């Protein structure tokens, strides 16, 4: 049986040979072990080093903005399209860009893969008690090899936190699907951490978030990685007038994070990328999750953040109760 990686290479080869794309975006191995990094192939040869496995990967959707910047408004020739490896969560990001009129669906080729959740190497290391030298992943288990002993861990134990709350385990529609098998992640909406914070008194809550935001070094990685953050010019980059002081006072931190949270409210698809890229581990997922939870409750939608033409915060109804 062909592995997913082999299937991908075959499909990509066909795309290039038939002159159907100018670029393929996927993953390759990084410099450090177990790291998977974005890779860009402009011909089949460059795609040969690309792989698909179950280690944690960065999101690719955001790169479409830059790669299709020059043609944002028009449909390109077939040979100028960009193909992108797409998991369910990536698909939500891509849909976001399409719904927001940043890119056109016609200009991309979605190469879909089902996903059962990605492996968190940090969790595996913790369970092993040291840094794993080798990690092999099979259908159900992860085998982490340490200096002297090996540990067999069930996948469920080391799957990334964000994957536990996955709302789309394979792209809803695609041009090419690399595997038919539907992933069987159990969707598990977990708002328990958010409920814990809701139960805090206002003072406790303020202290909690102050502590988190005071750690913020304002590197803007959360913004730069987020597909919902797709403004051509971000207000935090505008120097005149300066919307955000360069000084990193707590009040400014609150303002930065709140504005960002409100800006992506109803558009955040819970991909968890902001939390992953944060160098000081601010639990941004809780902030965005709270807004998602409220939208789901107030607008009676099952899942806030699924990009569509009509969204809870993107439409107005004449019979709106105007409760606020």
């Amino acid at each position: 049986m062909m592995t997913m990686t082999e299937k991908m290479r075959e499909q990509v080869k066909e795309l290039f040979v038939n002159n159907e794309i100018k670029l393929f975006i996927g993953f390759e191995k990084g410099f450090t072990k177990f790291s998977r990094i974005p890779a860009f192939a402009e011909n089949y040869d460059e795609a040969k080093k690309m792989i698909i496995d179950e280690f944690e990967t960065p999101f690719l959707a955001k790169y479409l903005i830059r790669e299709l910047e020059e043609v944002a408004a028009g449909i390109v020739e077939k040979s100028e399209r960009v193909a992108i490896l797409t998991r369910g969560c990536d698909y939500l990001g891509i849909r976001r860009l399409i719904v927001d009129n940043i890119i056109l669906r016609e200009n991309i080729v979605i190469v879909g893969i089902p996903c059962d959740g990605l492996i968190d190497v940090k969790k595996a290391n913790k369970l092993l008690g040291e840094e794993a030298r080798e990690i092999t992943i099979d259908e159900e288990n992860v085998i982490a090899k340490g200096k002297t002993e090996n540990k067999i861990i069930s996948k469920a134990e080391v799957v990334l936190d964000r994957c536990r709350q996955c709302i789309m385990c394979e792209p809803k529609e695609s041009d090419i699907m690399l595997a038919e098998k539907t992933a069987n992640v159990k969707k598990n909406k977990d708002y328990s951490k958010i409920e814990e914070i809701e139960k805090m008194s206002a003072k406790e809550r303020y202290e909690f978030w102050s502590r988190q935001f005071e750690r913020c070094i304002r590197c803007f990685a959360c913004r730069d990685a987020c597909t919902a953050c797709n403004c051509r010019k971000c207000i935090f980059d505008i120097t005149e007038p300066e919307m955000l002081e360069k000084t990193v006072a707590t009040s400014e931190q609150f303002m930065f994070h709140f504005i960002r949270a409100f800006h992506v409210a109803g558009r955040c698809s819970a991909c968890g990328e902001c939390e992953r890229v944060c160098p000081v581990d601010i639990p941004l997922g809780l902030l965005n999750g709270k807004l998602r939870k409220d939208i789901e409750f107030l607008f009676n939608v099952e899942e806030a953040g699924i990009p569509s033409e009509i969204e809870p915060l993107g439409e107005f109804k004449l019979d709106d109760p105007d409760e606020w």
Partner: protein
Amino acid sequence: MNKLLRSNVSCLLKKLSEHTEIYASTEEDGVCILAKLDNYEEWTMNYVRTANSVKDVFFPQNEEIMKYKDASSDLKIEAPKPFKERIAFGVRPCDAAAMLLLDDVFLKGEFYDSYYKERREKGTIITIACEKPDQHCFCTSFDLSPGATEGSDIVLYPTEDFFLVVEVTEKGKKLIKDNAELFEDIGAKPEIVDSYKNMRTVLGDVCIPNDLNEKLKGEFDNSYWKKIARRCLGCGNCTFVCPTCHCFAVCDVARGCDGKRARTWDSCKFQDFFLMAGDHNPRPTQIERTRQRFMHKLNYFKEKYDKYQCIGCGRCVEKCPVGVHIADVITHMKEEL
């Protein structure tokens, strides 16, 4: 050489705090950071590297240069208060060595930075040697080691039940003498120190050729910059966590007639870093910005100070969301040029 019992560390920190500000590694919501310590029991050794580096203690992200009041009528200008004595505790050897690079920038030469100078003069660095370097560490590539003493005043070498204390500078010696009751002389134990100094990092030696900067000189338009910049998201993560990156901006913050002038970190990764009046940007895309970061570290800094501006702490590598790796750059350039 002295020994310091692990159980005496909190005691020492408490005693030192009577006259000084203590910055130590502490855990906050599962993140290990170097921060001002109020509770001396809270220091931890549960980290390979803290999320922020010791740079924060001597060159903070935010610093007030002056305050002004009532600019409309009777202008009053207030200078910042003199800094307190400060001790950074639990610093890693790589971070301590990075301070020597910042010294080159801020203290050596015709001009010096008075704020930085005052903090450095009033500061003491107590380093803890690394027991377990992780996969991101590569300090041995820069003639350092998990037991290096460069830049530290005192180095503590952990053993099973105590710290072996090595004083490096006069400042360190004095600190031990002033708190002699907490230390115990156990004579020379070079084997412990050597075991740390001979330790190799997992990544091994990247081996930077001494003339890499010369070779990089002609590589302004190398296609490799384009290749890695394509991945770069353009966040300032790598530069802010780096203990040797030192670019800053000065800004005025006004509220009515009152205001302040502040110095803040800035990052060559940001699009507005090079933005000039008239909206001209000499480094308009991520390609030029990425090149700038690596050229500064591996070429310009070496030209000026005869050292590479990296100590292999591995922070940028660990924190980069898309796996841009300076050792990868060095290895690639070494092979290509």
